[in-house]
């Protein structure tokens, strides 16, 4: 069954870009406004899902050579290890801290250690969701 899906592919490409941007925005803005690791990860994952829908899985895995199983494992490790950090400063496991720094382009910026933790969550979510969709679609 071969259908002409030029429109889908074209719209998909633009859509994926928008969703990616939106996902990253959500992830970064999560500290103060709606968003964060889980939602950001989900949105990014849905961008990948859209890619899989518009293109076949081989093309996508050639273009984006990421092993999503490993990605989710790295995410879990990152979330866990980021919790170990404070232990070395005499704080309880998973304590988070934050501070304000002067950065070259952004000016005064808040940096929080919770970002590392959230990044771990985001990677886990992306890895797991894409991995599930990928294995189901490949099976067929």
């Amino acid at each position: 069954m071969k259908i002409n899906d030029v429109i889908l592919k074209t719209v998909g490409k633009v859509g994926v870009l928008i969703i990616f941007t939106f996902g990253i925005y959500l992830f970064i803005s999560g500290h103060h406004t709606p968003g964060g690791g889980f939602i950001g990860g989900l949105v990014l994952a849905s961008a990948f899902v859209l890619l899989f829908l518009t293109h076949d899985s081989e093309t996508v895995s050639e273009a984006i050579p990421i092993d999503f199983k490993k990605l989710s494992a790295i995410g879990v490790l990152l979330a866990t290890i980021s919790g170990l950090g404070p232990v070395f400063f005499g704080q309880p496991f998973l304590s988070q801290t934050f501070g304000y720094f002067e950065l070259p382009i952004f000016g005064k910026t808040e940096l929080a250690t919770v970002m590392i933790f959230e990044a771990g969550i985001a990677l886990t979510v992306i890895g797991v969701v894409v991995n599930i969709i990928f294995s189901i679609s490949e099976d067929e």
Partner: protein
Amino acid sequence: MHALILAILIPFLAAAIIPFIHNRLKKLNLGWLVIVIPLLLFAFFVYQIPVISSGETVSAMLNWIPSYGINFIVYLDGLSLILALLITGMGSLVVLYSIYYLSSTDSLPHFYAYLLLFMGAMLGVVLSDNLLVLYVFWELTSISSFLLIAFWYHRKNSRYGAQKSLLITVFGGFGMLAGFLMLYAISGTFSIRELVASAGQYTDHALFYPALFLVLLGAFTKSAQFPFHIWLPDAMEAPTPVSAYLHSATMVKAGIYLVARFTPVFGGTSAWFWTVTLVGLITLFWGAFCAIRQTDLKALLAYSTVSQLGLIMSLFGLGSAALYFGDGEQGAFYGLATFAALFHLVNHSTFKGALFMVIGIVDHQVGTRDIRRLGGLIAVLPITFTFAVIGSFSMAGLPLFNGFLSKEMFFTASLRAANLPVFSADTWGWIIPVIAWTASVLTFVYCMILVFRTFLGPKQSKKPEKNIVEPPLGMLISPAILSLLIVGLFFVPNLLGDHLLKPALGAVLPNITDAAPHISAWHGFNTELLMTIGIIVFGSLLFATVRYWRKIYNYLPDGWTFNNLYNQILAKSEKNSGTITSAYMTGHLPHYFTYIFGFFILVTGGTLLLSGALSFDSSEDAPVTTYDFMLAIAMMVAAIAIPFAKSRLTATLLNGMLGYSIAIFFVLFRAPDLALTQLVIETVTTVLFLLCFYYLPDWKKEASPRGVKIRNAVIAIASGLTVTLIGLSVNSFDSFDSISSFYEDSYELAGGNNIVNSILGDFRAFDTMLESLVLFIAGLGVFTLIRLKAKKEEPNDEDQ
């Protein structure tokens, strides 16, 4: 971070690094790198000896769960120091020995990673001050020893032995955990030091005796005390270096350590005195009795370990009487037993470690451990023979070796206990020296069997397959060092006594100041010496006639052993749990849903009704707008329509409608995070469904009987009703203060304006972390299920 904490962490870190570096060293044996760790740690603990022997202690703390008083507190006193020195010292020798013992075909990275894991766990056990931290490390020793015993996992016996040790020690560990929790309930603290400091206040508490017996259960299973000793002989399936380490020097000593550690808390009571003493004595006798019949050298040593552990255990039991009397002449008089226990603890590690290594050499060089096939090895293995003599004569308690000293003190203690004026010892106390002496005669016999049957006597007529020679020098170093220690400790025992045993005694009997004696080899011509002479005379007689009375074992009914009981329990529980599981795991999805929802209705709904939490209070409800009404009605229609849908696509769409409507509700109630999440999840699941859609079988209505349909309807309605009632009741339930005020200053506490994310990433980050782990495991589960299924369908492609 404090060096003491690092000392525990270093082995774990090293174990984690090993998998990454082993590929880079092709030529160098991994053991040469690993040995650095125990050597360094040993040096560190040796460096602590002056501090500890001057009466001070060292402690350090890391926060773990401060709000519950559970922190990672490490604490080094005399008792911990002895054990830590044994763990790291024996660890160094065992690693050195294993470099030569293991062949290159064995998986060395696994071996050393497990060994380091075990070492770290053992250090954790003896250094923890917090009960729960101790428990975590305790179970970690069970797990890592399971891995070590099953190191040659292709052998059925190895797997059997590993499983047995795990089941028995973890069973005891659970008991111990319950005991710890009871101790917490009694005293309100998890700290051992605080427990010891307030000892004696809790004896009237209802939970005191249950806690006592549960803690002892943990100690007895770990230290292979009767009747839990059955796992230790089977654990000998492990490689010999492991046996030398785990089952002579360290793991089994964990139980001994626990008894010693809790003596100040529970000691001084009749229950503790008699339980520990009697279990120890029975184990001492039964282990020695069983050792004689063994034909496998390693099995003989295993039973002898069981027996010797019983001896140490009984000494701690006897010594606990000192706490009844407190500081004074009598306290010091009975406290000698505890001193002897600590002394024998060290001695046992030296001679048993040496003996295991000797047996390993025999096995390695000759190729068999069967006593019936060995003999006359003295001609070819003279050095090994020397070590064997030193080790077993020390174990038999003969002069010129350190075992003699502690054995004499054991007799002294048992004779004193017979005259103990309390705990009804004046009636029953006489059995203590009787059992002690009888068991020692048997000990003498099996020690002689070990030496003379293996190394002396006629050479076996069978031609050995290979030329038997002494092993490489490196394999001899470790037993040589231990043999030197055995002899050295006989001549200068007080060096050990003053610097290590005395502070340890202070830890076990904190209130008794003057119990540590001056150890002397010649202690006069007294009953103890007579007992020793009697042992040599009777023992030699029994050894000479052993083949006549060995038949006694045949009269013991075979089916009545604890081993048999264990196997029966294992087989029965496997069978029964199989029957039960197949009764409810039907593989039929509707059944599972029936169980899940039925359970939910019963437990949750039942609790709601019975606890009287059901209440309706609509006074504080927000007004319901037209939008809310419309949305709710739309959702209801969709939900009711799903069961009546004619095609699968319709059902999916209706389901999607429900999901998106909930998202709209979130928008209405100003929860953008949730709305966003719901929308994305709904989209992704719909896509997922569409992916499978094409391949699903045809949608056909289930033609279930009317009764089933009614039952399902009842369950569905009841579930919905339960959830609704909970929702309504929660809204009007005000027994507890609202916790939301805590989160109002999320910006000050976590620096984030987004409360939801502050909760997820900061206040309750542990939940989030574990949830991500669950998600990860679920993802892996889906992946493997699908991939494995694909493999099964086309097995031929895989084979080709």
